[in-house]
């Protein structure tokens, strides 16, 4: 819920930079490893927007996969079934390469 509140604070701050504008849609990128359950976040966002000054703001949640990079063959791959090893060359020497995202991608506004 506090993450949803941070999203709305940011939307209000961005909208305030454009006098008269009204936010209609916010795009968010949520990684598999962000610690945020997209359905729960959507539920909280919608609950906070309902009846507020931001209504009818809508959200687009883009889910970002958990990724690692192979340190031997440099392949970037999606982690499937918690397997951290490289599916291309089989190496166990890999590093984190994504899935942490909890960020805005865009804000759509209507201006007078």
């Amino acid at each position: 819920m506090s993450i949803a509140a941070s999203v709305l604070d940011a939307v209000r701050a961005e909208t305030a930079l454009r006098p008269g504008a009204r936010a209609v849609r916010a795009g968010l990128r949520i990684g598999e490893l962000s610690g945020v359950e997209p359905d729960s976040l959507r539920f909280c966002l919608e609950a906070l927007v309902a009846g507020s000054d931001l209504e009818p703001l809508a959200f687009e949640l883009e889910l970002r996969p958990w990724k690692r990079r192979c340190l031997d063959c440099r392949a970037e791959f999606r982690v499937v079934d918690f397997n951290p090893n490289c599916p291309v060359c089989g190496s166990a020497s890999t590093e984190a390469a994504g899935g942490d995202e909890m960020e805005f991608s865009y804000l759509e506004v209507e201006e007078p």
Partner: protein
Amino acid sequence: MRIPLERKVLNENDRIAAGLRERFQARGVFCLNLISSPGSGKTSLLERTLEGFDKSRKVAVLTGDIQTDNDARRLARFGFPVRQITTGGACHLDASMVERALTDIADDYQILFLENVGNLVCPTSYDLGEDARAVVLSVTEGEDKPLKYPATFHHADLMVLNKIDLLPYVPFQMELARENARRVQPEIEIVDVSCTTGEGLGRWRAWLEAQL
């Protein structure tokens, strides 16, 4: 009109956390964020840790709970500065809570423990300016906790397997728990401890001293 917006959702928290980290680094402070589900033994681990420290050590603890100052009272017995952060409903600590609580503590600590609110989900997303994160997992929980809460274990530097004195009474498979943790975080370090018998606490202390 679509405005591209490249910023993190929690960038206000991240900004405060970055300030704290800078402050800690300038003073050579080691700050550890302790995360676990409720009842895994974070407070017990801190009790045993504080008990083992020489009184001349500069150690401070901030302990977070939704309600009560029970943990702060348990930890204050050892003579080091301890402050309770009562979040009043929030299920995690955030950087501003830590910043506020620190204004109340003399600025000479060299080790700072942040005992997060008992929760394996929400604390993960909030940077507190720490140098390292430790997750405590007790053997009365499931070995699959790292797979159920991958984000938390993925961001941890250390996993403390606690309550190993209970292994004869529970079906917990240590090796499976270690394997699961390494699947979500291949670089994670692991120490096995019992805060009741003291077994393994030497390894935990050695890990801690190696971070300083």
